[in-house]
């Protein structure tokens, strides 16, 4: 045991004296969570729009007031002719143009129908979609107020309620994803690099010749990263709690326990990677290409799995991150307990065992 503690101490020296790995360990999680939280967002705020009002009557004025009062849009420009729409877009500032047809009020009262054209700049499809949705809902809102005075029988008014994330904050979606990426990266990449480093330097040989048991050498290399990853998880949760006001509905203890499980899954992956790579560079490439890309693309972090083509949906099942993201979202946003996520937990657990068995086998073969 004493030998083991000395080993772990040495491992911490390595980590704390290497500025690069320190930066990856602690700089990156904070940078990523802040970036995803503030900069990369699906929400729209103060989007510049232009108005082309052909009728300029009471109704259009009311609608325009309503739109400019919302925090989503700010009216940047009034256009008088259809020909000016395109130049307005081309300047780049305007993201949408609302085009009210002639005699808007009159038509609305007389025919019960009037048209607004919403033209959006779809160079960014997501933003365009969101703009059109927001505009629609403002218009609908107005319509309801307008109809209050007139009795119409049989009317279906859909009422939408967004649950678990009522304000549709995109940071709620990113936090579980970023946390998954960080834990995966720190645990898998850093351990695989640190183990292959000993191979590259030739120290692995010295350690194997020493009376320290080979599996203790590996455990000793891994233990510091369990601690550091846990600290990272805490930093991320604290940031999302206090900076982004993202609540944790479920039990903090369960969240912590599941995080430890996922950290161990990633570590065992890291060990596996280190058994198949000879140099630190290979280990890093395998970690980045083999782990990061699937985690970002196929785990449901950014792109919803349910809208992927079938083969990709099947592949996504073998990505540990997918299950961890489900677990995180369930605990943090829905506040469920273990009874609802035991299946995902079991899958992660099984994967961990599988990776450990596989890397133990590989490790032995290498020693031969």
């Amino acid at each position, binding site marked *: 045991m*004493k*030998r083991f*503690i*000395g*080993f772990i*101490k*040495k491992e911490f*020296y*390595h980590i704390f*004296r*290497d500025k690069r790995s320190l930066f990856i360990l602690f700089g990156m999680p904070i940078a990523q969570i802040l970036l995803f939280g503030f900069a990369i967002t699906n929400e729209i705020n103060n989007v510049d729009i232009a108005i082309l009002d052909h009728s300029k009557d009471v109704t259009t004025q009311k609608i325009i007031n309503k739109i400019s009062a919302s925090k989503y849009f700010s009216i940047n420009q009034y256009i008088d002719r259809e020909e000016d729409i395109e130049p307005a877009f081309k300047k780049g500032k305007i993201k949408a143009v609302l085009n009210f047809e002639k005699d808007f009020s009159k038509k609305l009262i007389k025919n019960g129908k009037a048209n607004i054209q919403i033209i959006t700049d779809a160079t960014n499809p997501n933003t365009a979609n969101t703009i059109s949705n927001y505009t629609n809902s403002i218009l609908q809102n107005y319509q309801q107020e307008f109809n209050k005075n007139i009795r119409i029988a049989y009317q279906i008014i859909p009422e939408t309620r967004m649950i678990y994330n009522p304000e549709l904050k995109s940071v709620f979606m990113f936090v579980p994803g970023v946390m998954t990426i960080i834990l995966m990266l720190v645990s898998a990449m850093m351990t695989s690099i640190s183990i292959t480093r000993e191979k590259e*330097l*030739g*120290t692995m*040989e*010295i*350690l*194997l*010749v*020493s*009376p*320290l*048991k080979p599996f203790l050498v590996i455990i000793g290399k891994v233990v510091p990263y369990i601690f550091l990853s846990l600290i990272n998880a805490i930093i991320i949760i604290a940031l999302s709690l206090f900076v982004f006001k993202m609540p944790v509905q479920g039990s903090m203890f369960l969240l912590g326990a599941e995080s430890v499980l996922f950290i161990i899954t990633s570590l065992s992956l890291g060990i596996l990677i280190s058994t198949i790579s000879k140099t630190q560079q290979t280990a890093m490439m395998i970690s980045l290409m083999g782990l990061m890309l699937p985690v970002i693309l196929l785990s449901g972090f950014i792109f919803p799995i349910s809208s992927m083509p079938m083969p990709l949906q099947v592949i996504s099942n073998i990505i540990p991150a997918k299950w961890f993201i489900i677990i995180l979202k369930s605990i943090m946003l829905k506040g469920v307990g273990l009874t609802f996520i035991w299946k995902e937990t079991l899958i992660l657990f099984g994967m961990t065992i599988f990776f450990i068995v596989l890397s133990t086998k590989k490790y032995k073969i290498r*020693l*031969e």
Partner: protein
Amino acid sequence: MDNLNVIEVEGLTKMFGDFTAVDTITFKVKRGEIFGFLGANGAGKTTAIKMLTGISNPTSGKAKVAGFDVFNQAEDIKKNIGYMSQKFALYDDLTVKENITFFGGIYGLSRAQIKEKTEELITELDLQEIANQLASSLPLGWKQKISFSVALLHKPQIVFLDEPTGGVDPITRRQFWEMIYKNANNGTTIFVTTHYMDEAEYCDRVSIMVNGKIEALDTPKRLKEQFEANNMNDVFLKLARE
């Protein structure tokens, strides 16, 4: 087992698939002997050392190191040997003191022992000024000397030196060999591989491996007579060309 022999190897063989890396080698090494283990690159030296240090299982044959069998007592062997290679000397990002503490620790020395040994080493090698410096700041020769002492921390019966003086200047090499002699006189067996043929002359006995087999084994003097050569370099060349 003869108490005088700390290494006894008989018909030791290692195969990787069809390739025979070490081919039925047989030799004995006496206590306190400086045994030179020579051979060109790829002759099978490293594989042989790996088997003797208990990190690789032989395919067939017998071998005892420090009285323990390489097949099923590898753990006991590891406690009784020291190992140092040219490729690795010390952890660069640890200070000299930390390196000593770490290696003492993994060899199971107690805290008091480590402290005592560290003091001893620092005085002996005159390390007072650099004890708290990172190992990366030291010249290679220094690192090799400290590394050799570290390999001896736990008083092993045998110490394996895999090309310990590679890339070191002649003066430091000379000092290094003085350290080897001193420890051999104290009863530590030295098992050393080298590329420098002048160093081969310093050994008590020398074995030369060619293509996995030991082709010659004797004192440097008799090897020179046997091969009618002026120095070990010629002996080596004659053997390697055959």
